[in-house]
């Protein structure tokens, strides 16, 4: 088959597609072969083609492969078609030539050939029938070859003049854009020479484009055009007109296409076009303002964001004439629009524009004229429409402009402040005439001043090089403001007082001039606006207000004091604030001691207020270090004087103490505290009430101290404490020489036993393995200690001693690396299992408690014994002894509970006896935390849970004992959500079953309600986290919940079942809930009349939630 025949095959549109593409391939092969000298490669390619396309035509080609197909031969052969009168054949012919150029990018063309093709295509562009083929050809020519001077230009001109974009398909329109893009990259000069002609053609071409792919390209090309063709200036308006059609972009791509162009892509490209030249400003800004005034909220917000970006790109000069309109539109939005989002965005826009305008010093006049507009309007509104939304909005606009930058703050404040102050004075004069309204206005002026001060501080926080050393605009007003606010502190209105408090603190921390500093660090004396004596007056008045009878004012003054303390130097605080506070605390203490019973409750309260303030101040680390001695003396004083407000001091230790702070005075502090405790407890055969309050707090403090001491210092302390307790060497403590019978581990007097927790807490916090620290404690000693502890655990009749010793043993076991601890368990088990009557119950329970703590120790350090012990505990749940069974079931909570010391300690609601407070304090101490040096294995909880859960589940299924359910819920309560979810299939039926059991059982013993409580708790957790998994069970769940909420015996049960119902209504879809709506609404009616207000409140919330379901 000859080449001409192959050409015929390709051109003939009636032949099937495959044959035609084969023909094309043959020609391409031929051409390729000509160019490629290496015959071997060629043959390889042929073979590959053969394998892929089992087509006979290639076989033929192999026969004729000796023939060479030169380009000029090919064109000659094609000649007929290229000039054929039939449109179709002519276009097919052109396409063939184009395909050859496209698919053989390496085709080497000489200059003559190039100009031939150039001429040819330029000529052929006029041929309407084959325009798309020609465009493709030109693209190939431009992309793969380098055309000489006139052709590129000529081609583009003809392209613009002859080809109408709408006649081309999408891909070819894109090709034209690509051609322009390539020409920009390679032949910029040629295009620039076209000037206006290019712009005209280009504009025509991009107008009316709709396909997102082309639009993307077109948008991305536009900034280049603007950059390279200076003549665009005269076409800016029409260019913007074309662009603005697309704004705002509303385009939803198909979800399925991962490579699809998204709306965000288009929007950001369009935004770049908008921002590409300042010449657009006069068109785009009014356009955007119009869009901002439109009705659709999304459009408004998007337009504002666009406006911000554009104004940044355009620069101040271009924006200057438009700023009045911008302000007009934005202020209109802020003052009249309802949607808070729109208002917020408008404010943000004003803020951004102000900031942009103030970056360059040269733009200052423009900034000034803009801000003056705002100032005038705002001050007008503030003066005329006091105490209304309008004034509030204006104030917030001013806040934005002030906080934008230091420069803008200066301009605004120097205009606004005199006006405001004058207005305020006027109000004061008029206050007689209309006290209610005028004082209201007065309040809002003070509030406004406060906001302005705050905004000014904000503006000083972001640093700009351009504004270096800019003076604070407040400076010249500082004295007037100071006098005003200080005077207002004695105002009769609480609101005014608290506002002026805040103003003063803001004034206090205002700095003199704009410098680059770390924010938050304390300022030098010269940096602050106010002089030292004024600052001290402020602190003084704040401290006196700390004791105001009004709650809000107290917290406010404390907050302000904190703000000041964070920014002030430590020396100044120590010089004035701290001594005053301490003096207040101490004088009250002394008064309290004098025993004036009538005033004692009020002074107690006062002291508490001061102490609280002191505590809060101590959270500032550098300050804390310097006041440590004061804290110590306070602490000792308090113990001595039986003064029971150590709670606040306790929180100092819990929250703010760390190693660096305590390093230097630990010894003095700790042993001072301990000796005082000894004296208090041993000497005074005083009331147990006092001891029971003092002890837990002191233990927490000791715990925090010892936890934060490093290992080597710990060793000294432990050595000493062992000497005191085990060697009975009480003389080591000062002032206790007279105590003769000091044998804590032998004596059974209450006082001596009460002191044991101190020893066990200190020992348990050792950051090393005590059993292996032979340099410190000999092996025999260790055994003696362990034995004493063990005996105390079992024998002691004072729970606090027993528990703390158990914890201490647990901590020792946890850290011990040896295997010497097994005998402990061997000693415990017989005691628990002894069924003869000669062991008393208390000892059994104590032993069980120890077992639990030892298990926990193993559990945390990942020892495999924990599971064996877990099994033992699980067996004990089914013990016939009710107490043992209960305790064992509850123990799973202790096992998995990871205690963190936190403020949100739940007040124990069940019983408030002193005993239980002490016990809960002790159990909740983080004995085995990483900070106390415990050996902690990662994911130990999950491991224990996955192993233990099936054991308990199996036991429950076999025995049907409700105690197992309690154990399971205790287990569930402490595991992470992920683990819980994986076991959901097992957990949920159990919870539902227990709920229903309750419903049937008429009598609810205490035991049962406990179980029900924990089921409800689990259920609540599930409803909050995985509501959808509950939905299949709604049918049985909801009636049970309704029954419990109306007939449950304990108020907590009724309350939490209502809570579950409320959460259900909030978290499940309407169609799931709808069938139960009426039954819930009617069912919980009795709960509305519950005798407990707590239940009623929950019922009200629940019923209202169900009412408004939709």
């Amino acid at each position, binding site marked *: 088959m000859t080449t001409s025949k192959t050409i015929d095959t390709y051109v003939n549109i009636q032949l099937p597609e495959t044959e035609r593409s084969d023909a094309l391939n043959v020609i391409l092969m031929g051409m390729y072969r000509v160019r490629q000298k290496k015959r071997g490669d060629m043959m390889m390619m042929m073979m590959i083609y053969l394998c892929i396309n089992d087509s006979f035509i290639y076989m033929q080609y192999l026969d004729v492969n000796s023939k060479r197909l030169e380009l000029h031969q090919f064109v000659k052969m094609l000649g007929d078609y290229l000039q054929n009168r039939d449109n179709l054949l002519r276009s097919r012919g052109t396409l063939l030539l184009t395909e050859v150029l496209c698919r053989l990018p390496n085709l080497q063309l000489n200059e003559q050939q190039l100009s031939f093709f150039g001429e040819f295509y330029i000529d052929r562009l006029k041929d309407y029938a084959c325009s798309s083929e020609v465009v493709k050809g030109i693209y190939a020519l431009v992309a793969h070859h380098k055309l000489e001077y006139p052709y590129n230009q000529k081609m583009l001109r003809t392209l613009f003049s002859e080809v109408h974009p709408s006649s081309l398909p999408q891909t070819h329109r894109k090709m034209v854009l690509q051609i322009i893009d390539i020409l920009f990259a390679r032949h910029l000069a040629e295009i620039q020479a076209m000037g206006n002609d290019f712009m005209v053609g280009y504009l025509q071409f991009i107008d009316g484009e709709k396909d997102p792919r082309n639009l993307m390209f077109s948008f991305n090309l536009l900034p280049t055009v603007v950059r390279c063709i200076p003549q665009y200036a005269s076409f800016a308006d029409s260019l913007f007109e074309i662009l603005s059609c697309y704004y705002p972009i509303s385009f939803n791509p198909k979800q399925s296409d991962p490579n699809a162009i998204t709306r965000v892509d288009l929007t950001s490209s369009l935004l770049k076009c908008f921002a590409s030249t300042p010449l657009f400003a006069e068109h785009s800004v009014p356009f955007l303002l119009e869009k901002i005034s439109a009705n659709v909220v999304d459009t408004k917000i998007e337009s504002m964001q666009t406006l911000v970006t554009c104004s940044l790109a355009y620069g101040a000069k271009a924006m200057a004439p438009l700023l009045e309109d911008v302000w007009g539109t934005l202020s209109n939005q802020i003052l009249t629009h309802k949607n808070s989002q729109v208002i917020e965005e408008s404010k943000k826009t004003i803020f951004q524009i102000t900031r942009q305008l103030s970056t360059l010093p040269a733009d200052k006049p423009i900034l000034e004229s803009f801000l003056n507009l705002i100032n005038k309007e705002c001050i007008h509104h503030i003066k005329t429409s006091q105490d209304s939304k309008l004034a509030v909005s204006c104030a917030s606009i001013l806040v934005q402009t002030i906080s934008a930058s230091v420069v803008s703050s200066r301009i605004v404040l120097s205009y606004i402040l005199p006006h405001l102050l004058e207005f305020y004075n006027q109000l004061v004069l008029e206050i007689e005439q209309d006290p209610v309204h005028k004082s209201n206005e007065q309040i809002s002026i003070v509030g406004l001043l406060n906001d302005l001060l705050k905004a000014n501080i904000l503006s000083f926080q972001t640093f700009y090089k351009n504004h270096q050393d800019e003076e604070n605009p407040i400076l010249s007003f500082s004295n007037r403001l100071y006098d005003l606010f200080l005077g207002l502190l004695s105002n009769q209105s609480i609101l005014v007082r608290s506002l002026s408090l805040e103003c003063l603190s803001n004034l206090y921390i205002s700095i003199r001039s704009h410098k680059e500093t770390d924010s938050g660090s304390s300022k030098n004396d010269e940096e602050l606006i106010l002089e030292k004596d004024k600052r001290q007056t402020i602190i003084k008045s704040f401290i006196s207000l700390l004791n105001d009878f009004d709650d809000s004012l107290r917290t406010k003054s404390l907050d302000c004091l904190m703000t000041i303390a964070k920014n002030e130097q430590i020396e100044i605080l120590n010089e004035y604030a701290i001594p005053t506070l301490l003096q207040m605390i101490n004088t009250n203490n002394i008064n309290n001691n004098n025993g004036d019973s009538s005033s004692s409750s009020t002074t107690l309260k006062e002291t508490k207020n001061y102490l609280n303030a002191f505590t809060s101040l101590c959270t500032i680390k550098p300050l804390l270090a310097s006041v440590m001695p004061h804290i110590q003396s306070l602490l000792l004083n308090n113990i001595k004087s039986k003064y029971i407000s150590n709670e606040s001091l306790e929180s100092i230790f819990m929250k703010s103490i760390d190693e660096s702070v305590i390093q230097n005075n630990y010894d003095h502090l700790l042993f001072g505290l301990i000796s005082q405790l000894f004296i208090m407890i041993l000497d005074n055969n005083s009331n147990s009430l006092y001891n029971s309050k003092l002890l837990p707090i002191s233990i927490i403090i000791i715990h925090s101290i010892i936890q934060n001491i490093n290992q080597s210092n710990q060793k000294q302390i432990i050595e000493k404490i062992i000497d005191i307790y085990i060697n009975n060497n009480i003389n080591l403590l000062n002032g206790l020489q007279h105590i003769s019978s000091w044998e804590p581990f032998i004596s059974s007097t209450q006082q001596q036993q009460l002191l044991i927790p101190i020893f066990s807490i200190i020992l348990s916090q050792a950051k090393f393995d005590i059993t292996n620290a032979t340099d410190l404690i000999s092996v025999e000693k260790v055994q003696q200690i362990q034995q004493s502890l063990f005996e105390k655990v079992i024998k002691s009749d004072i729970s606090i001693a027993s528990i703390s010793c158990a914890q201490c043993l647990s901590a020792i076991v946890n850290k011990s690396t040896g295997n010497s601890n097994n005998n402990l368990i061997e000693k415990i088990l017989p005691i628990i299992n002894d069924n003869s009557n000669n062991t008393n119950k208390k000892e059994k329970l104590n032993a069980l408690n120890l077992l639990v703590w030892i298990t926990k120790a193993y559990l945390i350090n990942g020892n495999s014994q924990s599971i064996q012990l877990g099994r033992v505990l699980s067996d004990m749940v089914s013990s016939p002894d009710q107490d043992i069974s209960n305790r064992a079931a509850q123990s799973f909570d202790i096992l998995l509970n990871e205690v963190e010391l936190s403020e949100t300690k739940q007040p124990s609601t069940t019983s408030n006896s002193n005993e239980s407070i002490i016990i809960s304090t002790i159990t909740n101490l983080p004995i085995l935390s990483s900070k106390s040096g415990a050996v902690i294995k990662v994911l130990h909880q999950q491991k224990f849970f996955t192993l233990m859960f099936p054991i308990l589940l199996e036991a429950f299924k076999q025995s049907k004992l409700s105690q197992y359910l309690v154990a399971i819920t205790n287990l569930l309560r402490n595991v992470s959500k992920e683990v819980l979810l994986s076991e959901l299939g097992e957990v949920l039926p159990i919870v539902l079953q227990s709920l229903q059991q309750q419903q049937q059982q008429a009598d609810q013993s205490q035991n049962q309600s406990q179980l029900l409580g924990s089921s409800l708790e689990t259920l609540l957790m599930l409803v909050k986290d995985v509501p959808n998994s509950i939905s299949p069970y709604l049918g049985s769940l909801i009636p049970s919940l309704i029954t419990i909420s109306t007939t449950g015996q304990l108020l907590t049960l009724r309350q939490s079942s209502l809570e579950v119902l409320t959460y259900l209504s909030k978290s499940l879809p309407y169609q799931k809930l709808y069938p139960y709506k009426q039954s819930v609404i009617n069912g919980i009616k009795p709960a*509305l009349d519950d*005798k*407990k207000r707590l239940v009623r409140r929950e019922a009200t919330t629940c019923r209202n939630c169900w009412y*408004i379901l939709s």
Partner: protein
Amino acid sequence: MSDLSNPNPVIYSVEDDGNLFNQQERFTEDEDTVDDFDVYEIFDLVRDITDPEHPLSLEQLNVVRHENIKIEKDNNFIRLYFTPTVPHCSMANIIGLSIKEKLARSLPQRFKVDVKVTPGSHSSESSGMSNNKVDTFFILIIIHSFIHCKFIVNKQLGDKERVSAALDSNSPILSVVNECIKI
């Protein structure tokens, strides 16, 4: 914007919770003590209802005050006066309706609740004419705020039939009321 009857209401600071409401003493935790209904509890129910025109609560607008709630425990009778923000507030009816409905949903049925405008605070509290078509009135209120002056707020709220018709499940008013008492 123009159809707001009070575009710039005075905003009052919300009373300090510590003194009245969430005090622990009011919520006893033992099983036996009976907590009686008191005015604070009633006030707690209505304080968070939002004004139909503003995103503000009735407490913030000073529309309801606990001083204006009377409770007669023996007769199971509660009387609540509310004060519209401006004397001719067109939304008085919707506010009253919202209060009434919220209380109906939240209180046991034994209570009879009477919701009224504080004497002297509303221009249309006692004058006007009656309207036999039950529902139209409330719809009109929503659409045209100015017509209301001719009707009686108190009478409207006292008319059981009218109230129940307004809160019929298909009524557009129900959705407005639900929006107001949403938690």
